[in-house]
């Protein structure tokens, strides 16, 4: 067990090294650098900037160094806990990312819990009542959920809320709390705004996971041990919940590995549409403005979160399933 976790932990630094290279290559890929797009922007506004100033800025940001030196500077700073400075905002990346990261995590966790809370009962219901009206209803809902881009769902719900109820459901805070420091009132305010993005983000995953639970439970329900429990006269609902369900929801844990990245990615688009103060819109802005250290750091953070999600799922699986934990020993 400990070996298994240790092995997983040992891979992580290696993965992070590769991811940091990938992130850096990605942000280096656009032609030109931040200064070229900055100068272009200034020129559009009618201001010009002389060559000496450009050179000074280039030196200050380290953009005159060879690419590999830039990479080592960046990673070196990251290792010392310095996330660098945003070229565009002229502020430390930590300040920019800090609260947005927290809100991103809050949204992702809320969606994950929502998904499980809804998907597992639906899966159990459709498996125990296979081919019933309820089962068909959920099947149809599943297909539609999978086919609807989440930003479209967000737009439609926002429109309905505005058109029918006169509500503007954008953002995660009311105006009076947007810039306020954390307080109980602000937290409650967050919860009042969080539910809609949470549902929008969780719908597709709910459909998929309900499918997985249904299929697994159907397999388990026809196994001899279920027949045995039924034969000895256990009430059906007790039987289903006590044995097969526990086996059937184990794979749900293993889906964490791909579901967390999916939530993080999906949250990015939903955040742009619903103007949520999460990390997604910041990344989009940074990519367009070639604010490379900010963009690179955010992409790396996404990678780290994905790795952590996979790690948690691996550990949970090992705890639940002795076959997996013995493999490493």
């Amino acid at each position, binding site marked *: 067990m400990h070996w298994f976790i240790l092995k997983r932990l040992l891979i992580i630094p290696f*993965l992070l090294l*590769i*991811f940091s290279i*990938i*992130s850096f290559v*990605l*942000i280096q*890929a*656009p*032609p030109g650098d931040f200064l070229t797009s900055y100068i272009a922007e200034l020129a559009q506004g009618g201001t010009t900037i002389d060559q000496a100033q450009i050179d000074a800025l280039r030196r200050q940001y380290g953009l005159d160094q060879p690419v590999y030196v830039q990479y080592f500077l960046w990673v070196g700073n990251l290792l010392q806990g310095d996330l660098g400075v945003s070229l565009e905002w002229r502020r430390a990346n930590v300040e920019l990312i800090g609260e947005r990261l927290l809100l991103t995590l809050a949204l992702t966790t809320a969606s994950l819990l929502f998904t499980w809370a809804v998907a597992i009962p639906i899966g159990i219901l459709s498996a125990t009542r296979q081919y019933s009206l309820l089962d068909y209803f959920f099947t149809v809902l599943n*297909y*539609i959920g*999978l*086919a*609807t*881009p989440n*930003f*479209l769902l967000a*737009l*439609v719900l*926002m*429109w309905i809320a*505005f*058109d029918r109820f006169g509500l*503007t459901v*954008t953002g995660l805070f009311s105006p009076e709390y947007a810039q306020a420091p954390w307080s109980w009132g602000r937290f409650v305010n967050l919860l009042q705004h969080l539910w809609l993005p949470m549902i929008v983000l969780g719908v597709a995953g709910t459909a998929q996971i309900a499918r997985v639970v249904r299929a697994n439970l159907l397999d388990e329900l026809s196994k001899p041990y279920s027949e045995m429990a039924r034969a000895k006269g256990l009430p059906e609902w007790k039987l289903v919940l006590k044995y097969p369900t526990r086996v059937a929801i184990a794979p749900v844990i293993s889906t964490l590995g*791909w579901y967390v*990245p999916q939530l*993080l*990615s*999906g949250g*990015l*688009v939903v955040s*742009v*549409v619903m*103007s949520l103060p999460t990390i997604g819109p910041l*990344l*989009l802005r940074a*990519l*367009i403005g*070639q604010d490379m250290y900010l*963009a690179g750091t*955010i*992409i790396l953070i*996404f*990678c780290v*979160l*994905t*790795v952590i999600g*996979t790690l948690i799922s691996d550990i949970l699986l090992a705890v639940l399933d002795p076959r997996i934990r013995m493999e490493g020993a």
Partner: protein
Amino acid sequence: MSVSAAPAKGDLGSAVYVAPAWKMTWWRFRKHKLAVAFLWVIGLVALIAIMPEFFATQDPFATSARRAYIPPQTLQVLHEGRLQWPFVYGVEGQRDPRTLRMEWVDDTEVRYGLRFFVKGFEYRLLGLIPTDRHFLGFADTPPGVTPNLLGTDRLGRDQWSRLMYGTRISLSIGLVAVAISTLLGILLGGISGFYGGWVDNLIQRLIELLQALPPIPVWLALSAALPRTWPVTWVYFAITVILALLGWTRLAREVRGRFLSLREEDFVVAARLVGASQWRVIFSHMVPSFTSHIIAATTLAIPLMILNETFLSFLGLGLRPPAISWGVLLQEAQNLQSVVNAPWLLIPGLFVIVTVLGLNILGDGLRDAADPYST
């Protein structure tokens, strides 16, 4: 193992014994009513993608500032309580004196009847045959005015026609991206599964690495790297390649799994023992027995690609105007403000949903049909 003799027509009883795998798959698929129904829907969408000009009612690029934000002129069959041949009412614009916004109202005095195979703007059918025939049109329209079945956008462009053109690009991006990832997937998955050993290990680690990357941020970063000055066609191909780059891993896994299980099958061992070359074993014995799985997996991958293109273009990092795709069309409805003003701009989203839904159901049907152990 493969039997190439065609079975006699209408004689299913004995045909079953000599039918090749794809035929048995088709017979099983036909029993899946919903999938067959959606085969027709997807067929129609594909037809639109092949010749959008024919289905368009007017030039999708033509702007007209005076005809901005006209709501959909829906087909009517009742006029003054009497059943009529389908027609649309004309529209009349009045400027709201308070908001200075154009308000469009139906002009029930004017009716344009629906006509089929009418003359319109000139184009080349399939890029070859010059013609000016269009599937839909309206009778007795004054010059310069064509009814807008799905309304117009901010620049007065006809949404119906734009949707038809967008179908071509969105569907073809899905197809091409999946074709590239299938090729990569079969090649690398095949190598991995057939040779095993360190090659297998290396490819598997690469796949795990790629699957651990969060897709949308990476796609965004890659598309942001495309120079803004590139022409539309270059961007189109670049986006396709970007989508395929992360998309092949799932297929590669599936192919590898198939290869691993087939490698030990009796007929493969037999082929090897009688001295068939490695290429022959792979391509005439192993590949035919999992093509149906590949087709099913591919069908299920296309909708994902279509959705991803929609995401990218919607965020402004995928295809860019003047290219028209479903994502580009939905970009017009990017915030609450524009949706409240012109809800019909969300209609392209319905097309996305129906197409993706159809392809998913089709893919599931194919997968069930291709599984020899299913009942």
